[in-house]
């Protein structure tokens, strides 16, 4: 386990796996991520006919289906000639990496490839590495280049960085902590560095950085989902954050989906706007509040940011 995950060769333009969230409710994430990548001179090549990765749900029903789903996407990336797949959703990173782990075993790989073939998809050789878009930006551009790209520093904004669970976890799949370019599994800090480079005050000791938002049970266990979402907001409040920046679309949606319940259970004061980190970076790189699609968020960061003088 300590050997880390072999990342293989890097691509100048890796494949990009958007996942359902970024094409759906998390559109703002996708749009602003593209803006940010563009400003930093990075590009990704979208996997066109991707399919849902199965997240954490499908594996509870069938191991093979739960591996075949992400494997198809990885196979598509490989047939695009890529060795690297970048995804922006923690759940996707988890599923893709988990599939990679599973197909390391030849028997499983054989079975999965048979399924892929039967379904008319290319087979997968197990050679694509998976990276989160945050790690990608951090590795390829880094805080220095981000700092250089900032046009409007986020001065005066205190941001709580929220990474969510599956960004680094489990390291067995993601290689966190043991693989070059991967974040620290217990104390991730890439987001802190990038946002700091954007001029924001980042709460680097934010205690809820990697706690679970309950998103896995966003609908199926409301008590847990609400309590966990609220606890992230509450920790942000305790730490004095203006807003919460996240890299996890599920986390973002889960918290925002429960705003009314959180308000009812814990009071208005707990609430904080929750934004994608790329939205903030985009803002810092010069986009307007509208361009960074802050109005998309139910927690209405647009109103807040305007009140702080961001146009």
């Amino acid at each position, binding site marked *: 386990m300590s050997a880390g995950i072999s990342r293989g060769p890097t691509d100048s333009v890796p494949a990009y796996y958007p996942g359902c969230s970024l094409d759906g409710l998390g559109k703002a994430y996708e749009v602003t991520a593209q803006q940010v990548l563009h400003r930093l001179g990075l590009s990704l090549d979208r996997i066109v006919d991707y399919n849902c990765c199965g997240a954490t*749900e499908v594996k509870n029903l069938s191991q093979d289906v739960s591996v075949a789903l992400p494997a198809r996407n990885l196979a598509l990336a490989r047939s695009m000639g890529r060795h690297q797949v970048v995804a922006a959703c923690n759940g996707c990173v988890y599923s893709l990496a988990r599939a990679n782990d599973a197909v390391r075993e030849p028997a499983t790989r054989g079975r999965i490839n048979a399924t892929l073939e039967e379904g*008319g998809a290319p087979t997968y050789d197990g050679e694509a590495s998976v990276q989160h878009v945050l790690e990608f930006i951090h590795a390829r551009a880094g805080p220095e280049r981000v700092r250089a790209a900032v046009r409007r520093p986020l001065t005066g904004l205190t941001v709580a960085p929220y990474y969510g669970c599956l960004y680094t976890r489990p390291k067995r799949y993601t290689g966190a902590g043991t693989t070059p370019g991967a974040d620290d599994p217990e104390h991730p800090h890439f987001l802190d560095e990038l946002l700091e480079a954007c001029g924001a005050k980042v709460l680097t000791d934010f205690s809820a950085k990697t*706690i679970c938002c309950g998103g896995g049970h966003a609908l199926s266990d409301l008590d847990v989902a609400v309590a966990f979402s609220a606890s992230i907001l509450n920790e942000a409040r305790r730490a004095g954050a203006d807003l919460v920046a996240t890299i996890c679309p599920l986390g973002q949606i889960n918290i925002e989906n429960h705003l009314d319940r959180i308000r009812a259970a814990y009071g208005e004061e707990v609430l904080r706007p929750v934004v994608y980190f790329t939205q903030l970076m985009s803002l810092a790189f010069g986009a307007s509040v509208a361009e960074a699609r802050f109005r998309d968020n139910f927690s209405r960061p647009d109103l807040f940011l305007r009140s702080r003088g961001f146009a």
Partner: protein
Amino acid sequence: MPIVEKSLVTVDRSERLEIEGIDVSGDWNTFLRSRVQTDLDVRIVDWIRSQPQGDTISRCWQCGTCTAGCCLHTDYGLSEFNPRYFIYLAQVGYEEELRKYATTIWRCVSCNKCVERCPKGVKVEEVIHTIGSYLEFTGGAPESPADRFDRAYTENLLRRGVLDEASLFRTYERMEGRTMPAGEMLKMGFQLFRSGRLRTGPLAHRTRGWRRFGNVLREKLKEDERCRRASLSAAGGTGGHSP
């Protein structure tokens, strides 16, 4: 007679009973139920080990690292949710005790902190879900909300290859017998529509060439479930029955 240690016992009693002309209803005839654990059933762990999601269960040595970090156990304070304990019960084969947690075990939020930290490489989260499946398959226990969600989710994605979130939301809420107030629904719908995010039903994304792949997976899914259940009855089951 009062049972002072009410929370410490379970009882057998007849509410109405007369023996030899003496009314001995209720407390007078109450017997306490033994707490002694008498069964050990290796079939539970054998089955779990046979599942790809559960094959790491036997590595567990009960250190408790998983439970120590478990957000449900520690943060949420759901002390009966104890992954280490679930694994132990399955490992040793305390079926009856394990079954008591059928209504708790599905609440795992899949945050994977346990998997992350386990010093022996037990994929705790997956093992826990496999134990959950075992209980579901053998106990005839009612499907948990989490199971329903897993199914709704899988169904949804298998339709087009990508998720139709709004439809999933509607389907699942219907399954749970919940309806969102019309006003709220409209408000949300409007906001999504305005931002170009309301792409549901015919407007939803679709993966090209999905029909064939989706069908294969659907078959695979059915086959897999059939196999899992079959392997369970081949292992002799454990007195439970398939729902």
